[in-house]
């Protein structure tokens, strides 16, 4: 039997274009999009002076971006030294994570994916706990009592409907707290993503949905993922506002997110924010991206670096000097090393811990299984 000829479901993969050019072209096209909110251009010049956040906010964002970058860079080294497990890097996406999470307060909810270490750190997840999580230690699952951050979500898109529920609960309780959930461009193909957006709109949930479009879902460029070219417009289908923002411009991501958070607090409902960014790094530290793109093609990404962009801006505006920056970097490095020591001091879990926290009261079966583990340890 000969199958019917149909239109190709995706562009031909050729030796020269293994998806990389598609992802890069989509990023570049979005940068030309006049609807995309941008405050500082890649060269550091201010394109929307009217939207500039206050100087102290700009400096605070820079500090958080540097903390996030430091974690990402030290994380690689620690991984190579065998002191951190496999983790998904986010270097290059700091503006997308820091600028958005910085618009929350500690009373708000954060539903991060595995990629969103930078967002969690920004809201206040301690570095030591974050290191512990990526070390595969249960100590990484103990969230501080004053934070409503969930452990990084591994299954994709499940966090979106949950954020709607948390947001509705806050409204029922009469607070002005909001819930923020993250997802990738790939994750936005899942049914849960669409169901959540629809629920949030229909129920007017105080939710802020961040869709980080970093060009990739492992090896699949956004162009293969969907025929849609502007993912912020997915909001239209659910009757909620959609905003497209330059995901490498921390001032812009902060500005649009703060507006969305305000709207949600005022009871005006959810917003979908697409941050247009790029995954410069591999999918995880163990991924081999040469299967779908060549590292040489990444040349030129430095010029789009979100951390350097804000740095240029702050230096140009005289809000920071090289000397004050050096002080900041030293402080951040010291904070990290202290946190690393703390993480190093967490004891290894004991065997019976695999059975902890399944139920409030262990079932008879779990009690028996614990006894079995303890007995086997003796032998």
């Amino acid at each position, binding site marked *: *039997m000969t199958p019917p000829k149909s239109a190709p479901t995706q562009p031909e993969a050729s030796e020269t274009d293994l998806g990389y050019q598609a992802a890069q072209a989509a990023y570049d096209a979005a940068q030309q999009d006049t609807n995309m909110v941008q405050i500082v251009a890649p060269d550091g010049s201010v394109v929307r002076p009217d939207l500039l956040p206050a100087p102290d906010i700009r400096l605070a964002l820079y500090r958080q971006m540097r903390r996030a970058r430091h974690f990402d860079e030290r994380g690689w080294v620690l991984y190579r030294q065998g002191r951190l497990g496999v983790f998904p890097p986010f270097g290059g996406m700091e503006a997308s994570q820091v600028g958005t999470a910085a618009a929350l307060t500690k009373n708000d909810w954060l539903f991060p994916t595995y990629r969103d270490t930078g967002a969690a750190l920004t809201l206040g997840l301690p570095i030591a706990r974050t290191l512990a999580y990526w070390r595969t230690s249960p100590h990484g699952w103990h969230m501080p009592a004053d934070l409503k951050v969930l452990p990084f979500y*591994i299954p994709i898109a499940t966090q979106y409907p949950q954020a709607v529920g948390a947001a509705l609960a806050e409204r029922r309780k009469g607070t002005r707290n909001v819930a923020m959930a993250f997802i990738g461009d790939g994750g936005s193909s899942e049914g849960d993503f669409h169901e959540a957006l629809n629920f949030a709109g229909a129920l007017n949930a105080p939710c802020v949905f961040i869709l980080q479009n970093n060009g990739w*879902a492992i090896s*699949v460029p956004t162009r293969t993922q969907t025929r849609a070219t502007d993912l912020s417009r997915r909001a239209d289908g659910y009757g909620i506002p959609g905003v497209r923002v330059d995901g490498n411009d921390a001032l812009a991501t902060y500005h649009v997110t703060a507006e969305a958070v305000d709207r949600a607090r005022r009871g005006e409902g959810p917003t979908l924010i697409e941050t247009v960014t790029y995954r410069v790094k591999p999918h995880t530290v163990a991924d081999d991206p040469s299967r*779908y793109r060549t590292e040489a093609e990444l040349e030129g990404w430095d010029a789009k670096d979100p951390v350097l962009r804000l740095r240029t801006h702050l230096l140009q505006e005289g809000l920071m000097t090289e000397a004050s920056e050096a002080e900041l970097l030293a402080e951040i490095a010291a904070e990290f090393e202290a946190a690393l020591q703390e993480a190093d001091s967490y004891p290894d*879990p004991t065997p019976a811990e695999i059975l902890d926290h399944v139920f409030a009261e262990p079932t008879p079966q779990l009690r028996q299984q614990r006894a079995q583990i303890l007995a086997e340890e003796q032998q």
Partner: protein
Amino acid sequence: MVAAINDALDIALGADETVHIFGEDVGVMGGVFRATDGLQAKYGVERVFDTPLAEAAIVGMGIGMGLAGLKPIAEIQFAGFLYPALDQILSHVGRFRHRTRSRYHLPMVIRAPYGGGVHTPEQHADSPEAILAHTPGVKVVIPSTPADAKGLLLSAIADPDPVFFFEAIKLYRSVKEEVPVGDHRVPLGKARLVTRGDDVTVVCYGGMVEVAQKAAEAARTAGIGVEVVDLRTLVPMDTETVLASVAKTGRVVVVTEAPRTGGFHSEISATIAEEAIEYLRAPIVRVTGFDAPYPPFTAIEDVYRPNPVRVARAIKQVMAY
């Protein structure tokens, strides 16, 4: 083992134009485990293609393709990510023949890497085979050797009904053996006697077979003859081979790495209890995971997944009864 699977898929694509392979990262990248490596380059993007990231749609689309006469082979990147597709699976995959009185049937294969032993993140090490085995109308296959992986996969593809094909992640690169060339088939529903022995029957499958084998070796040096039965397929289950072995040994250990309560090990145990109780000289002992999510904690992951020591202990226990 992953090379054997790639070989089987290559043969199937070459032999039958209706065969289509799709899933997340199966195309350009050749799968996160390389099971589909090179197949898109060889057969084109219409027959081997990357889908958007949506398991329900992967399975649902596969159902439609299968109903309409294609041979869909879907890959779910990790068995722990089958869950978004459970509506399609539980509501539909196994029911078409029944609900259309065989007017339509679903010749679909769904491949999914499963199980632990390689220190993966949360939910990547799940063993959800019992959920599928509990779903009427679907077959469940779990190979334990490269030759079986190839032979069973080719049989699954040739099968007119839907087949879930679980591949133990631990075995992908750790086991190597010569694999018969060409269209090698292993029939579904036939268990394999891995070792022969007169004293204890160990029933297992997939990633647990090499664990049971090691325990059997240790037992042999202690003078205990262990018959390791590799089920190969849970549905249909080769009850005959299992019962014949039990009739000979009278002692049974069942090994899986799935959580304990409600696992397929319970089904195996119940079948033996129903059909062969008069042969049993000791209570059946199950060696399983625990009633907790599979731990991603590298330092203690190995406590969860049965190891040869735990199986050997169970063998001793049934011998001592």
